[in-house]
């Protein structure tokens, strides 16, 4: 019942591969048998109406659902040939390689510098911390705005700057994949545009999976789009196809704004 197009991996190993993935919250089957391949160095958007399971699916990719006591995951998520849900896997190691940026900017109540240095410090990457911090802030397009006030509180920044700080903080641990859960939904249009430009830059080095409510945003920034509805993956393929020529009725109804 779902449609999946061929994903062009360009001869490379996929960054992530979900296979028959299901998530339950108590009796609720929030994500139902989803299989999805995330190609390396691409932006994959997860779209769908509220409650369709897109955030839950995203949180499977770095085992964030472990933190919710009632959540139970079945199926596999393969990453470098290993199932992230294998008993031997340490979720702490997973999250180092698969970073996450959240819906609301959530900087720590620390200085700008300490926010970015937090990840390297807890992961024992203390060599040349100053350079790591600078490079991460540059990658997040924030360096020019904060380089002269790194010791200021992160809360002195605007919402958009805080979100870029959270992106810098994630990049500082040098992940391979960055998960973004509606990273611009709490921001104004100008801050949103900056985040979108940043995502475009970041895919040169990182694979990005982004959940968004905003269909125009998905259309602008993503290479592939997955449409989820009521816990099921309805259609997954190149963004242009999904938005201009979808095969599934429900996808077309959603992307043309007939429901959502």
């Amino acid at each position, binding site marked *: 019942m779902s449609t999946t197009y061929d994903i062009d991996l360009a001869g490379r190993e996929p960054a992530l591969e979900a296979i028959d993935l299901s998530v339950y919250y108590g009796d609720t089957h929030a994500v139902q048998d989803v299989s999805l391949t995330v190609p390396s160095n691409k932006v994959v958007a997860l779209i769908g109406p509220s409650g369709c399971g897109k955030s839950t699916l995203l949180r499977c990719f770095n085992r964030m659902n472990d933190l919710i006591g009632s959540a139970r995951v079945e199926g596999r998520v393969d990453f470098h040939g290993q199932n992230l849900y294998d008993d031997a896997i340490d979720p702490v190691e997973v999250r180092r390689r698969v970073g996450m940026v959240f819906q609301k900017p959530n900087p*720590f*109540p620390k200085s700008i510098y300490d926010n970015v240095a937090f990840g390297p410090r807890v992961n024992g990457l203390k060599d040349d911390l100053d350079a790591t911090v600078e490079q991460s802030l540059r990658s997040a397009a924030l360096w020019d705005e904060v380089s002269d006030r790194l010791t200021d509180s992160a809360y002195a920044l605007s919402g958009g700057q805080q979100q870029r700080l959270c992106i810098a903080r994630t990049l500082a641990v040098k992940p391979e994949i960055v998960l973004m859960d509606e990273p611009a939904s709490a921001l104004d249009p100008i801050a949103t545009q900056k985040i979108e430009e940043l995502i475009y830059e970041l895919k040169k080095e990182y694979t990005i999976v982004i959940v968004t409510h905003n269909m125009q945003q998905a259309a602008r920034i993503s290479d592939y789009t997955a449409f989820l509805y009521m816990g099921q993956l309805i259609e997954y393929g190149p963004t242009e196809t999904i938005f201009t020529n979808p095969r599934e009725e429900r996808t077309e109804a959603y992307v043309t704004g007939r429901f959502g």
Partner: protein
Amino acid sequence: MPHVSLTAKGSRNFKEGAIGAVLFACAAASTLVTIGVVLVLVRETFAFFSEVSVIDFLTDTRWEPMFQEQHFGVLPLLVGSVMVAVGAGIVALPIGLLTAIFLSEYAGPRLRKTLKPLLEILAGIPTVVYGYFALTFVTPLLRVFFPETEIFNAAAASLVVGIMIIPTVSSLSEDALRAVPDSLREGAYGLGATKLEVSTRVVVPAALSGVIASFILAISRAIGETMAVTIAAGNLPNITVNPLESIQTMTAYIVQASLGDTPQGTTAYRTLFAVAMTLFLITLAMNVLSQWVLARFREEYQ
């Protein structure tokens, strides 16, 4: 047009007014009592200082108001109180904070619901029981390890006062830790932090104002604690740093002097108020300090 009465009925007006007056009287009574207590303290303290100089009170190293040659140096009592408070703090602050971290970050909801009330029972045990516990259990135990321990000693009193104030620290600190938004925890987990790192490097620093306020309140309780230290720490005003010796705290002195041997109207009698005033000022200062810490750093997280 039918007549509709919108004017108030006389009896209802009277009832509402009376209820308001009763409620106001209750609120006013407690405030007035507080003011009265402070006024009496101030008056008697002034009377005391018209007979004894403030300098002597603060610098004399002997507290001997009942002796032929009187000395009114509050330092020995102050040292006694501070020693008990410091000892209690050494016991209660780490244990209380670690308990709070456990309850807030590690324990599941069911375990927390069971443990927290149990811990708060500690706060409900009458302090006289703690005093006898110190005298009949802690002191003999101390003597096993340190035979030179005196029967009445500061160490045993500090230990039990410390146990007594653990719930103050753990309960208030836990509230502060739990008030830290989960989004901060998720952010830290998302960077590959372990549970310990999330707790110690993100949650505790974010809740620091509440944690410190709980410390200050607990120490303030330890300074004001009376019964346990009167029973266990002794009645010997003594400037010492050895916790195995007998001491006297400000509160214990007030108990001793109130027991009736001191003739009313004498300077020795007025020492009661001078010491009480000192105690009141110290605990007041600490309460104000804890309020200030809370308010000053409240906006640490969004």
